[in-house]
């Protein structure tokens, strides 16, 4: 049993890694542009445009969005690549579409420091002045070093180092020129500055084989994400800039409250109901109950939720409070009052989340019991004079309910996933509504985190189901 458990847990690691890979690739190759709202002010004023551009660049750098997704081959950027891209931005021969121009600008921006050697080459050697000017403008941005965020204990040293980097970045900032400045000596000065700068700094761009290998694999979004993940750092939300894990954990209490109480309610009602109707098989009562359960099973939960919301929270029959998890004045209540208030709020959501599972599980319980109720050992139990209640509960139910246990594992993740729609309808600030808003705002880090956490929960659930099988049914061993 122990070996089996360990083996299963060991298998979970590659599975989880594969899931994270799958989810990561899906998200990163999908359409949509995280942080695009930072650029919304663009086009209104030129000065503001420049500021926006810079803040967007820093935003991309912060969230590693400037990095390639899986593999990084930017160490081998050729001068030609860079020159073509610069030409596309400038659109000198008026043949480039606007979309291509924007894409080219993003491309140079994302290349970051990898493009510096080619930019220097372009600045020193290119025959067209527009290209030289553009190269100098790009250099002042691309040659900037990144503010490091190491995770050391020596905060003071880190701060000093960052200060030095910021100083170096400020130094290169003015060394650019525009096309109409070529007449005076600006260009010559700028070129001279960069020539000197390059002669002192060029060592940083000569890559050994190890450097190339480490860039190829580690300077990517995936590697950065995973190295953060190993420290249990899911990154920050792109929208509110708060750590994702913190927000998810704070939201989890709402979702868990709903899910756990739904599961509890489902088992509490469905097992006795299933047994009750199995014992009365083919009577009118059984048929009515089976029919009602079947109808409930087919009833879409969002339909029921909207009906209940419209019937019981507004208008003449407004018995239940309107929306949310608790009232806004909850902090003024006593402990008992808070519990009552929350209960009052979650009643409708829990009803909507549980009736479907309740119907399904009752039907399983009924068939499960019917499967065993004709077995020989039940007849034996009756023959030796045991009361009917004990025969059903102790002998038949214990055996017939085994399949129900495994459903527990699928029920919990299904409830977490299924709660999205209910939480959105009843405006409960849990995981479900959080992921819904994040998805609509392209908040990658949040979506990744929620997907990974819920897949992990599912994997654990599957494992628990298999183990509980063995615990309940002595016939099953895994050794």
């Amino acid at each position: 049993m122990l070996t089996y458990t360990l083996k299963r847990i060991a298998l979970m690691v590659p599975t989880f890694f594969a899931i994270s890979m799958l989810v990561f690739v899906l998200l990163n190759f999908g359409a949509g542009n995280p942080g695009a709202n930072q650029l919304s002010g663009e086009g209104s004023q030129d000065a503001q445009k420049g500021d926006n551009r810079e803040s967007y660049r820093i935003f991309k750098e912060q969230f590693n969005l400037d990095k390639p997704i899986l593999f990084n081959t930017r160490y081998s950027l050729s001068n030609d690549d860079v020159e073509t891209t610069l030409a596309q931005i400038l659109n000198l021969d008026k043949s480039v579409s606007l979309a291509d121009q924007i894409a080219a600008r993003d491309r140079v921006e994302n290349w970051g420091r990898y493009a510096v050697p080619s930019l220097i080459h372009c600045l020193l050697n290119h025959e067209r002045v527009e290209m030289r000017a553009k190269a100098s403008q790009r250099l002042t941005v691309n040659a900037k070093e990144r503010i490091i965020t190491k995770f050391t204990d020596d905060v003071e040293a880190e701060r000093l180092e960052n200060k030095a980097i910021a100083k170096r970045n400020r130094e290169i900032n003015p060394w650019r020129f525009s096309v109409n400045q070529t007449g005076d000596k600006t260009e010559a000065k700028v070129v001279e500055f960069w020539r000197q700068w390059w002669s002192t700094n060029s060592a940083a761009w000569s890559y050994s084989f190890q450097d190339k290998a480490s860039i190829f694999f580690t300077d990517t979004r995936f590697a950065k994400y995973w190295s953060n993940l190993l420290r249990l750092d899911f990154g920050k939300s792109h929208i509110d800039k708060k750590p994702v894990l913190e927000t998810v954990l704070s939201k989890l209490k709402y979702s868990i409250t709903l899910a756990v109480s739904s599961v509890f309610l489902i088992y509490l009602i469905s097992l006795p109901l299933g047994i009750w109707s199995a014992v009365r098989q083919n009577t009118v009562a059984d048929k009515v109950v089976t029919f009602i359960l079947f109808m409930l099973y087919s009833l879409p939960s969002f339909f029921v939720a909207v009906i209940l919301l419209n019937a019981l929270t507004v208008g003449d029959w407004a018995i239940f409070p309107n929306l949310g998890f608790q009232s806004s004045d909850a902090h003024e209540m006593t402990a008992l009052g808070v519990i009552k208030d929350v209960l009052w709020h979650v009643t409708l959501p829990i009803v909507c989340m549980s009736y479907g599972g309740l119907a399904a599980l009752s039907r399983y319980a009924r068939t499960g019991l019917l499967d065993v109720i004709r077995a020989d050992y039940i007849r034996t139990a009756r023959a030796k004079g045991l009361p009917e209640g004990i025969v059903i509960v102790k002998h038949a139910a214990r055996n017939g309910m085994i399949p129900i246990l495994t459903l527990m594992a699928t029920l919990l993740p299904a409830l977490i996933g299924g709660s999205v729609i209910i939480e959105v309808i009843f405006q409960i600030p849990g995981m479900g509504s959080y992921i819904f808003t994040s998805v609509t705002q392209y908040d990658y880090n949040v979506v990744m985190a929620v997907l990974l956490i819920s897949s992990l929960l599912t994997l654990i659930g599957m494992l628990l189901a298999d183990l509980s099988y063995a615990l309940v049914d002595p016939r099953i061993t895994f050794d």
Partner: protein
Amino acid sequence: MSKIAKQAAGHEDATFSDIVWSQFKKNKTAYLSLWLLAGMFLLAIFAPIIASERAFYWQEGGETYFPWFTSLFDDNYFENGVDKFFNLLLVLGVPLFCIWMVGVRRIQSFGLSKRVRRQKMKRFGQILTAFFTLCFLFILLNPQGRKNIHSFEDYMDATTKESRSITAVFPPIEYGYSKQILKDKLKRPGFGGDCSKQDQGSDSCRSYAMGTDSVGRDVMVRMLYGIRISLSVGVIAVGIYVTIGIFLGAFAGYFRGRIDLVIQRVIEIVMAVPTLIVLLVLISFIEEPSIFHIMLVIGLLRWTGVARLVRGEFYRLRNLDFVTSAIALGFSTRRIIFQHILPNALGPVLVAATFGVAAAILIESSLSFLGLGDINVPSWGQTLRDGYLTQEWHLILIPGLAIFITVTLLNLVGEGLRDALDPKMRK
């Protein structure tokens, strides 16, 4: 006709599907549900006859037009593939059905054995399907967009404002599913003339059997065309995932060993990611999701159940004598898998597929309900969303009941099939 052939025809053994069918017919509820679903399917096909903006027949001066017929494959009027498919069924369905009936009659009159007859009928059916598919491809590849003329609006303008004399015949409901009648927004259901708001012109005297939604579209028409969307989402999504599931399950169950291990891991991975959340993510990350994206994504995410089912069946059947003898006879692996084992494993898959259609319809409508679906198709979930936002009872109950009834019917058919396939239930 030879004597032997006659004898063979007399002593036919009932095939497995015959037995299942006769069992299924004994279950009255399931049988009735199947017929009701067939009725819904017919309604979906005949939707343009019931509701369309264009006139069947339009005569003005000496000229006669048939605008309804040209609108059926018109990109300006029916822009998505689902509608074109059903319209083609409307045009070609009846003639093809007649040809099929005549053909079957002819094949039966040959007096062949049941086995040969089945083979001939199968071939005949394949030819008709191929013809239909060719026509459909031709329509999809030749999109046409004509000017939107001879509509009901034109007729009203021409007769009331310009007082031209026009003879035109319209369908019973003169609006298509995307027609917005802005002055009739959020009308409650009603029958007969409802002239309470006479100051708004003659058109507001109109009443709508199921009311209108928040932008003034006739709910009944949207429900009607919504059948098309729901049924095709269900069938195509399930078709995709049943195909994937059968292939992967069959390989895993037949070859076992390393292939099985790999496929098992893939199944585990796909099972562990929460379907609804991944669906939300994928759909919202697709720029302008169309109804076909939704079908594809559902199909790509939900195949694990079928794959496990088929794998289990193949594990069981692989050791039986008929497979061993097929291997001994030297048949190719492909033939053994698809012609010998697979037909024996299809029963449970069929049941799972029926329940799957219901589930896919639910998923599509919940996506539309959340506002992430295809906004250009008349999905039931969208109308329900409208009801949720406007709190109008008719916009909640009508689409909700439509979803509920469809799902219930499909589940009933699925239950009936399961019981019919179960040898324990046979009498």
